[in-house]
């Protein structure tokens, strides 16, 4: 049936040509790639895990909003950037102990998230505006948030002060080796990186638990399934939307602080760089899938880290998009996404 359609024929021919071209390139470069020894692969694995956990945590916010409302919230990356600033500036300006920065940024991110919903999304929903309008409106909200950050914080990079980081126990930023006994592999990882991984995965686990097990989480799933039915079941649809934006904002805030702890260069444009990564993560993993976002985050980190490791750092940013392209061709619902969720 498909073969008889000339458009599809052309499409599959184009796909085949592209894949062949890719394979030829790979075959040409392969000896070179194999020749370059990847120095201590286990070391890169630890990088993949801690960088990936931040990517996953960040991308989860997109997935959460998309799964409940069916729209992409493009202001998520700006909320992430604000989360980072709330963490860093509360230390620099108000000497807030570093332990409080995470809950503070989560609260702040959550509140910004709700404001974005009230200002950029809710008015459009009331008018039954198409999803594309909501997408563009969220892009506007993102620009406003970035501009506000420029006004307030300037554009030179900010970071957690070194002295504050030293307050953390066990010299948090100094790498120490961990050996895995029978594998003989040696990992170098800092306690700070361990904390980042633990915090990120703990938050992701909490979210999964909330959505899958609690009554409120089930109400969120009912809203995602059908808003009319949700209303008939006494579920306040607007309330669930605001909760969703609060949770997504809180995740962005947390990811922002973890990012600022990991990289000493926070600017108002940090979010823009993360936005593309985060969107790649959720499309790779499957739009609206929590587990997919976790897997996608680790994958994108792996592409970046290993591309650099084999000396192709110039490919670092391209590789995730190559993977994205292939996924869209062969598995458009993403690795762990369900094939087109039925909406009644």
């Amino acid at each position: 049936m498909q073969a008889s359609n000339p458009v599809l024929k052309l499409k599959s021919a184009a796909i085949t040509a592209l894949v062949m071209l890719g394979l030829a390139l790979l075959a040409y470069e392969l000896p070179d790639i194999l020749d370059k020894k990847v120095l201590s692969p286990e070391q890169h694995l630890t990088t993949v895990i801690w960088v990936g956990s931040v990517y996953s945590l960040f991308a989860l916010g997109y997935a959460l909003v998309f799964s409940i409302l069916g729209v992409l919230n493009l202001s998520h990356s700006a909320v992430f950037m604000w989360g980072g600033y709330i963490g860093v500036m509360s230390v620099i300006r108000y000497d807030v102990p570093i332990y409080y920065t995470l809950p503070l940024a989560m609260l702040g991110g959550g509140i910004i998230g709700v404001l974005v919903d009230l200002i950029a999304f809710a008015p459009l929903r009331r008018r039954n505006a198409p999803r594309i309008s909501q997408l563009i409106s969220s892009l506007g909200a993102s620009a406003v948030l970035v501009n506000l950050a420029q006004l307030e914080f300037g554009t030179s990079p900010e970071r957690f002060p070194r002295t504050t980081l030293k307050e953390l126990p066990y010299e948090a930023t100094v790498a120490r080796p961990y050996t895995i006994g029978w594998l003989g592999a040696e990992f170098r990882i800092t306690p700070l990186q361990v904390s980042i991984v633990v915090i990120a995965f703990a938050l992701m686990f909490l979210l999964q638990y909330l959505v899958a097990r609690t009554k409120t989480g089930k109400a969120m799933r009912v809203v995602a399934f059908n808003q009319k039915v949700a209303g008939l079941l006494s579920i306040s649809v607007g309330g669930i939307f605001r909760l969703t934006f609060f949770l997504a904002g809180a995740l962005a805030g947390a990811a922002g602080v973890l990012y600022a702890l990991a990289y000493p260069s926070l600017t108002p444009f940090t979010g823009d760089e993360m936005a593309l990564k985060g969107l790649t993560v959720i499309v790779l993993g499957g739009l609206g899938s929590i587990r997919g976002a976790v897997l996608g985050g680790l994958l994108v980190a792996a592409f970046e880290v290993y591309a650099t490791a084999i000396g192709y750092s110039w490919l670092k940013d391209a590789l995730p998009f190559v993977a994205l392209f292939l996924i869209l061709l062969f598995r458009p619902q993403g690795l762990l996404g369900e094939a087109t969720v039925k909406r009644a």
Partner: protein
Amino acid sequence: MTTPLLEVKDLSVSYGAIVALRGISFKVEAGQVVTLIGANGAGKSTTLNALSGIVKRRSGQIWFDGQDISGMRPDRVSRLGLVQVPEGRQIIAPMTVLENLQMGAYKRRDREVQHDIENIFARFPRLKERRRQKAGSLSGGEQQMLAVGRALMMRPRLLMLDEPSMGLAPLLVNEVFRIIQDIKAHGTTILLVEQNARKALKVADYAYVLERGTISHQGPAAELQNDPQIISAYLG
């Protein structure tokens, strides 16, 4: 006569330029089964959705139990006990049968939820057998029972059923109407929207006929059943 449980005054609804309801008025007395019959597109579902707050009304008033509920949000309306079983059942397919019933009790804080679930399982043994199955895997008849069961979990004071017999085999249609009588016998007031006018008039106490957004006939169901005009238009 006491004040009716539900009173609708001059209710109008339009979708853009299309007028769906042109100022209809009707009443539902407590303890009765009232039916709203009419052809496709007459405005039956629109009426229920306007009562539930899902569709915005253009004008008119809705009184439920002496309270003006016009323009109230759907979640508030249903909390008052004005509960709708929507057309096409609309059970939550990816959740289990048990979870669907629990969602019916979403806003309830009392301790009798478990007791009510057992009651519903006693009434619909098929649902008990399939309590751990995904609701989407049920047959059409079972889904309708789940939809009704889920609505009963909300302890409705007035249960609105939108085309409960739609798409069901004749044997199951009879079963649905038996359930309606059973619910009435337990003291719940019912507003029934049906295309199957013959069966609807049999279980109803009072009936309204909707025709292109207006009420063309009304009267005790037993009388309408014998009205030659109704017979030729809807029972023929």
